């Protein structure tokens, strides 16, 4: 081991960077050293970033339809900004709070300038920042995993422009933030300089991702694999132990937080982390994903409705990489993302697991990378495998012709679908009923200050800005049944309310919520916006005499 020169003091001798001893453990494809100073990488990545931001940003407030969860997180972020704690209702450890604390930071300055802008439709713009960063990270990660420039760019396009991505990444979901942190963790884990503190940082980023959305826990093995493959034998034990320690210590801050608040374990009269975790772990399953008619099947269909190429193509790509593991350098370089896809697929295939609609968000970057990697693998096989100097001319021409045909066919299939998706995204107005309902409640109700309304979370902040009392005046509808602090203020049940805003979510969930159900049954629509399933009704509670209260 005596093949190198010692470190020296004065600056005259440039940093004595001896090459590290080569190890045979993994044949490592040399990733590009300096992406930041590579003009072609910068231009390519920049152009794609602009395209992604335009497609994702145009019409972001009006499409897709506002989701209840977005309202929840943004309202809680608002509560953080107001200094009212982690939520305006009791924080009950449903998710770690780091996600909406980040949203609060992200929307802090706009909310200072214009407090009324703190509504779901407007603040979706903040998600553009997250999408943009994530998309760039996909490109950088692709390059660090030794993808050629065009393939990394392809991955970025898959990730940012798939209609499924466009729909989901526009929404204020914690998953989108968690994806950004996870990508950062992978990018640091694959750092070409194999720096101890980069790996340490990867551990911190991974912990942040998990504290943003706890389900990110399942990609940690894939991150570990990536880090293992990208660390050097001589420094690996320090790098990996450092990363694991960082991740664990940061992760423990959540239980520590609960402990400091005296809410770690269940007890009378307070919520607890234990109960929160128990709730999440025992959520009723939504059936087997391939079982037609189950809830999970429906969720799968809702993804495939927007895009089949990224989810199915990504799965195929992962499969291809796993099968060609032995021969393909690309397959080995992409081991981490491929494992992540495999883990996500395996979890989705649990016989009776709970499959939320945003589950796929976490898999998107890995699907994109694996699909790009698979494409690169195929391209390599077609263009270069078994190729020799003395190859006949017509064989070479044949290779290029085949590659051209494949590219054209793929393009012909993908481009029209995605064009349609993008056009829908930038032109449809899915939220007109919401805006109309909001306007109606602002103008037609006489005394918002003393009116009590059940709404779904998406509309809640709008009403707060219009003068309704947050929490007990304008009420998240399910809190009327589930939060003792709210039901206490409604001793006469539905009779203590004035309005119910019956959005699709409210109508769907009312079946299981007695107070909400009663309020729906004892109310009449006074205004209806939209038609059919998606309509929003403003229903006024009847007095006992039969008329409006």
């Amino acid at each position, binding site marked *: 081991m*005596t093949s190198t020169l010692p*470190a020296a003091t004065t600056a005259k*001798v440039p940093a004595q960077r001896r090459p*590290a001893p080569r190890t045979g453990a993994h044949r490592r494809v040399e990733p590009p050293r300096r992406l930041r100073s590579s003009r072609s990488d910068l231009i390519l990545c920049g152009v794609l970033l602009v395209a992604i931001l335009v497609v994702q940003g145009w019409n972001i407030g009006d499409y897709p339809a506002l989701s209840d969860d977005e309202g929840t997180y943004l309202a809680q972020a608002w509560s953080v900004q107001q200094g009212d704690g982690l939520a305006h209702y009791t924080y009950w450890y449903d998710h770690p709070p780091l996600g909406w604390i980040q949203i609060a930071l992200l929307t802090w300055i706009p909310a200072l300038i214009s407090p009324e802008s703190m509504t779901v439709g407007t603040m979706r713009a903040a998600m553009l920042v997250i999408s943009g960063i994530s998309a760039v990270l996909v490109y950088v990660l692709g390059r660090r995993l030794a993808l050629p420039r065009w393939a990394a760019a392809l991955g970025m396009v898959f990730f940012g422009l798939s209609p499924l991505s466009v729909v989901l990444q526009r929404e204020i979901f914690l998953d989108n933030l968690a994806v950004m942190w996870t990508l950062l963790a992978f990018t640091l884990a694959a750092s070409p300089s194999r720096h101890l503190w980069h790996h340490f940082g990867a551990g911190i980023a991974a912990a942040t991702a998990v504290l943003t959305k706890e389900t990110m826990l399942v990609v940690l093995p894939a991150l570990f694999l990536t880090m293992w493959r990208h660390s050097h034998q001589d*420094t690996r034990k320090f790098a990996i132990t*450092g990363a694991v*320690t960082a991740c664990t210590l940061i992760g423990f*801050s959540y239980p520590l937080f609960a402990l400091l608040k005296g809410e770690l374990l269940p007890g009378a009269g307070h919520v607890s982390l234990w109960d929160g975790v128990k709730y999440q772990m025992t959520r009723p399953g939504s059936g087997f994903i391939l079982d037609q008619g189950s809830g999970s099947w429906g969720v799968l269909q809702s993804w495939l409705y927007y895009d089949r190429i990224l989810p199915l193509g990504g799965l195929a790509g992962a499969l291809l990489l796993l099968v060609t593991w032995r021969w393909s350098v690309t397959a080995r370089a992409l081991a981490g993302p491929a494992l992540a896809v495999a883990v996500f697929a395996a979890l989705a295939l649990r016989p009776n697991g709970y499959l939320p609609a945003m589950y796929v968000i976490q898999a998107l970057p890995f699907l994109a990378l694996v699909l790009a990697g698979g494409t690169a693998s195929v391209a390599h096989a077609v263009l270069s495998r078994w190729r020799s100097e003395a190859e006949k001319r017509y064989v070479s021409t044949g290779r290029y012709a085949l590659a051209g045909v494949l590219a054209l066919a793929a393009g012909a299939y993908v481009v029209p679908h995605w064009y349609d998706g993008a056009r829908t995204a930038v032109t449809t107005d899915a939220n007109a009923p919401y805006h109309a309902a909001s306007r109606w409640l602002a103008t037609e109700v006489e005394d918002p200050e003393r009116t009590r309304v059940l709404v779904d979370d998406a509309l809640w902040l709008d009403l707060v800005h219009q003068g309704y009392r947050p929490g007990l005046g304008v009420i998240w509808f399910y809190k009327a049944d589930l939060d003792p602090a709210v039901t206490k203020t409604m001793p006469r049940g539905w009779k203590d309310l004035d309005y119910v805003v019956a959005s699709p979510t409210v109508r769907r969930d009312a079946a299981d919520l007695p107070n909400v159900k009663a309020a729906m049954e004892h109310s009449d629509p006074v205004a209806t916006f939209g038609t059919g399933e998606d309509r929003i009704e403003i229903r006024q509670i009847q007095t006992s005499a039969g008329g409006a209260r």
Partner: protein
Amino acid sequence: MLTSVFIAAVSLALFWMAAFTLWWQMHAWRTPEVLASTRFSSPDGDEHVSFSLLLPARHEQAVLDHTIQRLLESSHTDFEIIVIVGHDDPETTAVAESAAARDPRVRVVVDTHERKNKPKAMNTALPHCRGDVVGVFDAEDQVHPELLAHVDHAFLTTGADVVQGGVQLINFHSSWYSLRNCLEYFFWFRSRLHLHAQKGFIPLGGNTVFVRTDVLREAGGWDPDCLAEDCDLGVRLSSVGKKVVVAYDSDMVTREETPGSLMSLLKQRTRWNQGFLQVYRKKDWKQLPTLGQRLLARYTLMTPFMQAFTGLIIPLNVAIALFLDVPVGIAFITFLPAVTALVTFVFEIVGLHDFGRQYGLRVRFAHYLKLVLGGPFYQVLLAGAAVRAVWREQRGRNDWELTSHVGAHLDESAVSRQDATREDVPA
């Protein structure tokens, strides 16, 4: 409110201190390239410099001959050994004289100072040095036969004025504190010292250190009144821009053993701390050209005292967070230093594993357990030594505790090398 602000400020300060220390401690493992650069480069077979190897020996007749014989086995062909003995130490002198009679490469210099210490002894020998480079070893050092050739090559290829080789305590299994002591050396010579060399401010070690003879003479030799003359020499040389190179190879280090008792470890540590304090007060480091270097110097020389301080504050901080009614945000901040301490702990465990690997030593589970459990107690020991050093320096007591102590011990019973109470292990 005031309490909260105070606690937060103290916690953040501690956090940054601990974080920087950790950052520097892990220097060598930052990247595989850095790790590769901490090793000696292999010599090309040619010889370019001649060595004068100083071997101060005091009441060390039991081990001296063995050390000389081993040095004479060096593969390098151009060197002399100068054994420095005291005029009041006939036993050691006899051993040295007989070695000199057997081999012309060995010479004996007698130190006649009334009050003796290591820097005075070496200054006595300095005018007698004929080699291009002066090297320093201790009388009980086990020196690798290839070391001189590697050092020669390092002088040639780097144009260095000073080359510091690795020193490593080996007997980690002896006691709980020797385990931690070994690991301290491991992190210091394996990693931290390289950072110092790179930054241009370095407290040298007491042996396996090689200095160009003219540079050493120009600097006036060692400071006879400093308790950490090795550290002082490094600080003086690097402060005037001399180039120092550090190289560490596990098979080329000089092997040593930890002090034989907890008390002697405490005394040794007190002496170093007091020495560091003296070097700090001599202000040679103020000549360093950049602010960053001066800050590093200030921080490094003050480290023992900050260390003592952190050891006391961290538990207090955690207690405050858990039992006092402070806001959750503040409580979180108070945990930051503890988190850094935990990370350091984990890296120490990995370091112990690596140490075992490098030296082919079997580290058992019990050792890891000892490492973790011994941590707080070792911290108390360090804090004790730091307090003691400040107190002694304040009282103006800057005699070498070891001289009288070791002498008395050895005079009473001709103890073997392993039992000898040694305190003159270099920093």
